[in-house]
């Protein structure tokens, strides 16, 4: 159609470039966190993540070998070695934390306890003394070195494989899964039966019921928190998984019924009437015909409910998380990390990505159903 009125190709260029700009703008923040999760704490602190592909200047705290390796060369005692196994690219160095940039590579520094030391640009060093070196540990050396770009899986290993350094994320991951799956499965079933009744059974009050469900679609969650918490505490469910499953089921139902009813109402009338004529009961029609045909709508809602329960913070905080700290979900764990580890971006970024990865996977594999559900779910 663009060619009909001889539209200029410059316009198409402008459109293409604008879309590139939009996409980059939208991706940029996420990519930043993703790259940060693959960098070490030092790298993150030293430079912005967009510099990750380039070598960065970093301040390293290293130590020369101890006196036990000294050798006598003539009348000099000498300690020789390398500060790191790989080649460094040192720009300045120092021997005191107050002056880490006191010397250029190759210059000679006077040691406090006697003797001198020279550090070369590649990280090799040589300490000399006319007397024997004493003490237990080697000299501390501060270097500012250009370290090559490097991405590491270390953060993920720390978080996922080791109990002590995981900051509770592994447990939170499984807790989240435990909350999510029943909270997704149960409402679908309840809603499907109700949706069938609302779509294909004739009874007085049907129109009013549908209107009520449309109204309940937008009732804010906040309204339900206090009465339901009170109810749960009152009937002995307390705070726990059962409570959070019931809550998610209740809150998910209006959308589920609404989506499924709209879809089922659109199914061809002939099929259902033929089945009725052949003597099938409503129960049979529902389980044998309607349910299999409604698969796309069921999938749409399942994805919605899964994303919503996985990403939820408020419902979990109110109905699940108690003071024992045993039942925490990932979103809550991340909020706590934001408080206690606010500056440790390597931990925060990794934790956030562990939590985001599952919804993203679902999103990219099931996008078709998600879009379909969105289009059906927005009240037109």
């Amino acid at each position, binding site marked *: *159609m663009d060619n009909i009125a001889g539209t200029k190709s410059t316009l198409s260029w402008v459109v293409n470039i604008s879309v590139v700009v939009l996409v980059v703008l939208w*991706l940029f923040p996420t990519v930043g966190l993703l790259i940060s999760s693959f960098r070490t704490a030092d790298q993150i602190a030293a430079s912005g993540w967009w510099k990750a592909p380039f070598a960065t200047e970093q301040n390293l705290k290293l130590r020369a070998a101890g006196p036990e390796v000294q050798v006598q060369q003539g009348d000099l005692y000498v300690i020789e070695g390398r500060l790191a196994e790989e080649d460094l690219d040192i720009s300045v160095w120092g021997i005191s934390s107050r002056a880490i940039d006191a010397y250029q590579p190759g210059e000679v520094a006077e040691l406090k306890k006697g003797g001198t030391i020279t550090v070369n640009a590649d990280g090799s060093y040589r300490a000399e003394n006319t007397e024997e070196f004493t003490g237990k540990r080697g000299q501390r050396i501060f270097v500012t070195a250009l370290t090559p770009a490097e991405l590491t899986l270390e953060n993920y290993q720390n978080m996922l494989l080791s109990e002590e350094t995981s900051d509770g994320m592994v447990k939170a991951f499984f807790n989240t899964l435990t909350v999510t799956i029943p909270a997704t499965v149960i409402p679908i079933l309840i809603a499907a039966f109700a949706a069938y009744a609302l779509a294909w059974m004739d009874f007085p009050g049907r129109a009013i019921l549908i209107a009520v469900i449309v109204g*309940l679609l937008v009732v*804010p969650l906040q309204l339900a928190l206090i009465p339901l918490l009170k109810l749960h505490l009152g009937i002995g469910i307390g705070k726990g998984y059962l409570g959070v499953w019931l809550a998610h089921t209740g809150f998910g139902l209006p959308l589920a019924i609404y989506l499924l009813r709209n879809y089922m109402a659109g199914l061809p009338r002939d099929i259902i009437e033929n089945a009725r004529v052949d003597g099938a009961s409503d129960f049979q029609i529902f389980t044998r015909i309607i349910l299999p045909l409604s698969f796309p709508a069921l999938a749409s809602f399942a994805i919605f409910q899964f994303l919503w329960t996985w990403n939820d913070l408020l419902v979990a905080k109110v109905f699940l998380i108690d003071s024992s700290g045993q039942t925490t979900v990932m979103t809550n764990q991340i909020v706590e990390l934001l408080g206690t580890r606010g500056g440790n971006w390597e931990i*925060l970024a990794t934790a956030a990505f562990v939590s985001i990865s599952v919804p*993203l996977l679902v999103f990219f594999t099931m996008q078709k159903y998600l879009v379909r559900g969105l289009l059906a779910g927005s009240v037109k």
Partner: protein
Amino acid sequence: MHPALLGLITITIGVSSCVGYFYLSNLFLDKVLFPARGPNAGRNINRANLIRPWLFLFPALFALGLYLAYPVVETLRLSLTERVPGGGYRWVGLDNYGQMLSEPKFWEAIRNNMLWLIVVPAMSTAFGLLAAQLTDRIKWGNIAKSLIFMPMAISFVGASVIWKLVYDARPAGTDQIGVLNALYIWFGGTEPNTWLTIPFWNNFFLMVVLIWIQTGFAMVILSAALRGIPEETIEAAIVDGASPLQIFFKIKVPQIKTTILVVWTTITITVLKVFDIVFAMTNGQWETQVLANYMYDKLFRANDWGGGSAAAMVIMLLVMPILVWNVRNARREMR
């Protein structure tokens, strides 16, 4: 018991009791209560069909009533009472509301919520419309769409972490690791800003997060609407010599007006309920309080159930016009 096992058992019990309920109740209705045989077979079938819809509806209606309808009434009642230390409630009339109206934090939340209500739906819809229109015209539009849509899958908490890194500030003189400060310094700024602590403007930095998430939603819906526009109207406009901008604003936008309104109201509702972003990023400090977080504060930090309920009622009051509008639309459509 291990929670995963508990979960598995719950799924099994939940699913099988649902199926069992529907199956057995139908069986009971058809075989015991109104059997379709004997002298009254015809009448019995009719009676059974009168009752059956309610069998199908009962679990859903029960859950909806208990988890959504009852709380509305109960919250209203609680907002007029006060918890007495040691148990029980005392009727206090409108005291909770009066107390709330005298708190500066409440007015701050109202002001911020109004800002959110204006800015977020407007910007999300505008960006969504722009993205929908542009991506529909290019070959790789579907990939672009799915990338702009992606934040929709990310939790508000995850998004908060993502954007906190964007807003991060390091002491002056060191390398900035937050993009915003790095750009600010690069363009000649002297001191890095801690963006989230600048009163008033920090609200906008929080809104950006929600706009970023909601734009994809707006784009998907509006793109479908744009495709539904009859080709002839556009062709006629082209023949009449309309420019692309004229076609967009004078032909396309008027035809999808109702969809734009739907997107707008849907995002408005999301905005009214926004809690996680503020909770995770500033927790209402530095004058960024919003109603949902204010309510949470009342409820769990101050342990003031009456005040919390009053705050929840205010949110409900703000949602009310949209609720009425939705219901009226749905009823009109049904006819």
